[in-house]
C-alpha cells in the first residue's frame, strides 16, 4: 500500500532539484525534518539556552564575565574527550576506558616531567603516544579478534586504574606547575591577539563558505539558498565576536590584578573542532567512518578496509583522551590516581549524546561534542554556584544523559518511520 502511495508521489518529481529553494522554503523544509525526527543540534542548543536562563534567574553571578570564562575552561577537557568519543560512537562502538586513558596519560606526562625532569614537549608527546598505543591495542582487539568494544574497554577501564596506581603510588599525586602546561587552562591570550584571531577565523570561514557556494551555483549543483549561507556565516560571526568581547573584558574581582583575554583552551578547542570537522566531512577517511558506522557489510563490499577504519578511530579516541587528560591536569594543577575517574567518562559520553550523536552509529558531528560539552559543563557549573550538594549534580547530570539518550532513541524511531536519514 505504502509503495503505491510513494510511487504516486514520486511520479510528480523532476529528476533532480538543482535549483536552490527560497529562504522560506528552506526554513519550512528544516521544520519538516525536525518534526520527522531529524533534529540535529536543535535539542542541545535549546537545552543550553534554557539552562542559561534558569541559572541566571537562580544566581546573578552565573552570567558574570568571570563565570563565563570559568565555564569555558571547565568545558575544555570534557569537549576534547567527547570529540574522540563522537568518532567511536559514529562506528556504533563505545570506549569506556577513555576517561582513565586520559588520566593515565596525564600521569605519564606528570611523572616524566617531575620525577624524570624531562622537557615538557617530550612529556606531552609521550602522553599522546601512550594514548595512541592504548587505542591501537583496543582497536586491534575489537577489529581483529572481534571482542565487543564494550567488554574490551571495560577491561581497560579496570586495568588502567591499576597502571595509574603503579605509576603514582597509592593515594599519591604529582603537582603540575610547569608554566606551559598549567598555562593551557589558566592563562589567557592578549586582548589584541584575541580580537585578531576571532576576525581571522570569521574571515576565512566566510570566504571558504562563499567560494564553495559560488562554485556549486556555477556548476548547477544542489546548493543552499544564498540567504541561508549568509545567515549561517552571520550566526558564527556574532557568536565568536560576542564570546571574544566578553572574554576580553576585565573579569577579576580584585581591581589591582585585572584578568582579561581568551583562555588558551578556547582556541585549542576551536582548532580541534575545525580539524576534525574537516577530517570527517571532507576526506575519504571520514566518509568511510560514516559508512562503517552505517553499514559495515556495505562498506566491506565497497572495498573499504573496515578493520583499519575501526583501529584508526580507537587510536584517535584514546589520543584525544590523552589530550583531554593533559588539559584537565592543567586545570586542576595535579595528576593523581583518580585522574580521569568518577564522572569524567560519563560527562564526555553524555556530551556527545546530548549534542546529537547517535548511540546506534553512523550519525554525529564533531560540533556535537562542543555543544553537548557546554551543556554538561553548564549544569556542573550552575549547580556548583548554587552550592548544591554534589549528589544533586550527579542526579541532574544522570537525568540529562538519560533524557538525551531517550531523545536519540525516539528521534531514531521517528526517522525510520518517516524515512529520513
Amino acid at each position, binding site marked *: 500500500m505504502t509503495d503505491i502511495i510513494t510511487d504516486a508521489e514520486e511520479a510528480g518529481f523532476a529528476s*533532480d532539484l538543482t535549483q536552490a529553494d527560497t529562504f522560506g522554503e528552506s526554513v519550512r523544509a528544516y521544520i519538516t525534518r525536525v518534526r520527522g525526527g531529524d533534529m540535529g543540534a536543535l535539542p542541545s542548543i535549546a537545552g543550553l539556552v534554557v539552562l542559561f536562563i534558569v541559572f541566571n534567574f537562580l544566581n546573578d553571578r552565573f552570567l558574570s564575565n568571570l563565570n563565563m570564562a570559568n565555564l569555558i575552561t571547565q568545558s575544555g577537557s570534557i569537549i576534547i574527550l567527547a570529540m574522540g568519543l563522537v568518532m567511536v560512537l559514529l562506528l556504533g562502538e563505545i570506549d569506556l576506558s577513555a576517561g582513565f586513558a586520559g588520566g593515565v596519560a596525564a600521569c605519564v606526562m606528570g611523572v616524566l616531567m617531575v620525577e624524570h625532569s624531562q622537557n615538557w614537549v617530550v612529556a606531552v608527546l609521550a602522553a599522546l603516544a601512550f594514548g595512541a598505543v592504548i587505542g591501537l591495542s583496543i582497536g586491534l582487539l575489537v577489529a581483529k579478534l572481534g571482542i565487543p568494544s564494550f567488554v574490551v574497554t571495560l577491561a581497560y577501564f579496570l586495568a588502567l586504574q591499576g597502571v595509574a596506581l603503579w605509576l603514582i603510588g597509592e593515594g599519591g599525586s604529582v603537582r603540575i606547575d610547569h608554566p606551559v602546561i598549567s598555562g593551557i587552562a589558566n592563562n589567557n591570550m592578549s586582548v589584541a591577539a584575541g580580537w585578531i584571531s576571532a576576525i581571522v577565523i570569521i574571515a576565512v570561514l566566510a570566504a571558504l563558505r562563499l567560494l564553495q557556494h559560488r562554485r556549486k551555483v556555477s*556548476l548547477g*549543483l544542489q546548493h543552499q539558498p544564498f540567504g541561508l549561507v549568509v545567515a549561517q556565516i552571520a550566526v558564527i560571526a556574532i557568536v565568536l565576536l560576542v564570546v571574544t568581547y566578553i572574554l576580553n573584558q576585565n573579569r577579576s574581582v580584585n581591581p589591582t590584578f585585572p584578568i582579561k583575554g581568551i583562555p588558551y583552551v578556547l582556541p585549542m578547542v576551536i582548532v580541534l573542532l575545525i580539524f576534525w570537522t574537516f577530517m570527517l566531512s*571532507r576526506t575519504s577517511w571520514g566518509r568511510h567512518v560514516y559508512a562503517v558506522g*552505517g553499514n559495515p557489510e556495505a*562498506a566491506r563490499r565497497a572495498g*573499504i578496509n573496515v578493520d583499519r577504519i575501526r583501529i584508526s578511530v580507537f587510536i584517535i579516541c584514546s589520543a584525544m583522551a590523552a589530550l583531554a587528560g593533559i588539559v584537565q591536569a592543567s586545570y586542576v594543577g595535579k595528576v593523581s590516581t583518580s585522574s580521569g575517574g568518577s564522572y569524567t567518562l560519563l560527562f564526555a559520553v553524555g556530551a556527545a549524546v546530548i549534542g546529537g550523536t547517535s548511540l546506534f552509529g553512523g550519525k554525529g558531528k564533531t560540533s556535537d561534542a562542543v555543544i553537548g560539552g557546554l551543556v554538561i559543563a553548564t549544569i556542573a557549573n550552575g549547580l556548583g554556584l548554587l552550592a548544591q550538594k554534589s549528589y544533586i549534580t550527579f542526579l541532574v547530570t544522570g537525568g540529562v544523559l538519560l533524557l538525551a539518550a531517550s531523545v536519540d532513541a525516539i528521534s531514531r524511531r521517528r*526517522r525510520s518511520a518517516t524515512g529520513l*536519514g
Partner: protein
Amino acid sequence: MSEKSPILHLRGINKSFGVAHVLHDVDLAIYPGEVTALVGDNGAGKSTLVKAIAGIYPADSGEYLFDGKPQHVTSAKDAAALGIEVVYQDLALCENLDIVENMFLGREKKNGLVLDETTMESKAREALTSLSVRTVKSVRQSVASLSGGQRQTVAIAKSVLWNSRVVLLDEPTAALGVAQTRQVLDLVRRLADSGVGVLLISHNLTDVFEVADRITALYLGRVAADVKTKDVTSTQVVELITTGQSGGVTGPSTTAASTS
C-alpha cells in the same frame, strides 16, 4: 543477435565444496547489449555460479573468457578490474549516506586529500540521467529516505557510473511491489540497451520473460538449457527448472542433462 561474440564466456566450470559437487561442466555466455536470465530452483547452483563469476568462490576448473581472452579471476577485486559489477540482493548501501556518497563509496574522487564533491555529484547525476531515472527527488537525499525500488535503482546506477561491462543482478525485484518492479525492469532493459551485458538471476518467470533476451536454466548444477526467450514458453522453462528437461527444447547442454 547471437552472432555477436559473448563479452563473458564460461566453459566447463566445475565447483565442489568438499564432497558436494555443486557445478558440473557449466557453460554460460553473457552478450553485450543483452539480458541473460539465469533461472533454476533453490540449490541449482545459481548463487555459486554468480560467486564464481564475481571471484568470491573461484571455480575449481573450467575456462573464464572475458572478451575472448582467458582470465584468472580469484578475488572480487579481479572481477571488478575487468568491469564486472555485482548488485546483491541485500543491497550493499549505507542508509546514513546520501545517494552520491553511496555511489562513490570506496572509490571517492579526490582533489589531493579533499573529497571532490562537485565532480562526484555531477557524475552521479549524469549516471542517473543516462538511465532516465526520474524517481529520485534529489541526489543529495539520504538512502534511508528511499523506497526499495529507488535503492535498487541507485545500486544499478552505480554500475553505470563505473562503466561496468557486465552487471550481475541477484534477484533485483524479489522484495519490491508491483510499480517498483516495473521501474527496475525498465532500468535493467535500459542498462542492456546501453551495451552492457546483464545477467539477471530471478525466480520470477514473468520478469524473466518480460526483460530477458536469453535464458540459461540450471538444474542440479548442470545447464539444462540455454535458449532464446522467444523460442520457449513459460511452461517449458518451468519444466526445465523442475525436471531439467522439456520436450522440444534444444539447448547445448540438454543432452548432458538427460544422460545424468
